């Protein structure tokens, strides 16, 4: 029986690690991400007789690789392709947290939005319309309070259904200016030719247009590793406009 891989992403201070500890208990170990001074926490839990490996990604505000933390989180979601990525959000600061959520939704279809700190939000008299949010964003939304262990079962059920492929999502994709969309249309087919369906072509096209050389480097390494040979490293560099 193989274990499903679940990644926890989220802004700093959203209770990501609290949730991680609640789910994995003592079944966890920490270390560093290869070549980085960034803590990697991994643990396992069992739900309905199925084992899940949970990876606690570094807390970040964004995934544009401005720092080692962001690079680790981004690379894990895009290149390691977890079965499910759970974005843990602070219910009291949804606007700020949606930034990261939308970025993750550009990178993968397998996203669950987990709105944590619901107890705090309720104390402040805030209501989160989870159904409406799920409807607008096209991905499952689960409200929890990791601290009080509320909503955990619903979250685990949602993860289970997504890992087993029983949930089809249609993540809301940001539409950019006509100029940018035009450029994306120009290079996306070429990107798709190189990376196939294994990596998100639109997202990579966007990163290339942004002049993200660090991603280009990682992508080349990934493709070279996979195919051993046969990938023209120059091929990708050509499409990188700044």
């Amino acid at each position, binding site marked *: 029986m193989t274990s499903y891989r679940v990644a926890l992403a989220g802004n700093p201070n959203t209770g990501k690690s609290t949730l991680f500890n609640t789910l994995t208990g003592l079944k966890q170990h920490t270390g560093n991400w290869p070549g980085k001074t960034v803590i990697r926490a991994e643990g396992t839990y069992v739900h309905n007789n199925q084992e899940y490996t949970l990876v606690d990604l570094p807390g970040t*505000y*964004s995934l*544009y690789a*401005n720092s080692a933390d962001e690079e680790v989180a981004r690379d894990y979601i895009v290149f390691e392709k977890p079965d499910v990525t759970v974005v843990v959000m602070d219910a*009291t*600061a949804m*606007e*700020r947290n949606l*930034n990261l959520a939308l970025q993750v939704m550009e990178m993968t279809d397998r996203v669950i939005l987990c709105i944590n700190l619901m107890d705090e939000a309720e104390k402040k008299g805030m209501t989160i319309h989870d159904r409406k949010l799920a409807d607008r964003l096209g991905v499952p939304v689960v409200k929890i309070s990791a601290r009080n262990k509320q909503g955990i079962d619903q979250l685990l059920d949602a993860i289970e259904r997504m890992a087993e492929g029983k949930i089809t999502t249609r993540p809301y994709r940001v539409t950019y200016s006509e100029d940018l969309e035009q450029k994306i249309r120009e290079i996306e087919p070429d990107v798709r030719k190189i990376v196939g369906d294994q990596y998100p072509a639109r997202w990579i096209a966007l990163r290339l247009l942004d002049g993200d050389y660090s991603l280009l480097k990682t992508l080349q390494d990934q493709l070279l590793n996979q195919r051993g040979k046969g990938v023209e490293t120059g091929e990708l560099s050509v499409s990188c406009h700044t």
Partner: protein
Amino acid sequence: MVLNKTKTLYDCQSGEVVQIKSLQVEGTMRRRLLDLGFVPGACVKVLQRSPMGDPVAYRVSHTTIALRQEESSRIWVEEIGGDQG
């Protein structure tokens, strides 16, 4: 034409509440500021200055963030009110 007097975030006093008009910052720092919530249209409250006057703490989208003069002097804002104090 300037209707309401614009100034930079660095010029604001503690307690002032302002709205961001534009960011004169490029590259990764611009990206970073946007990620932290310093987006055009966002409301920012000036919380307090550190003893030497730099950095300054700001409240933006429910979080406190301190910026150096280097960045705050490149963020153009417009006054919208606030309590002095």
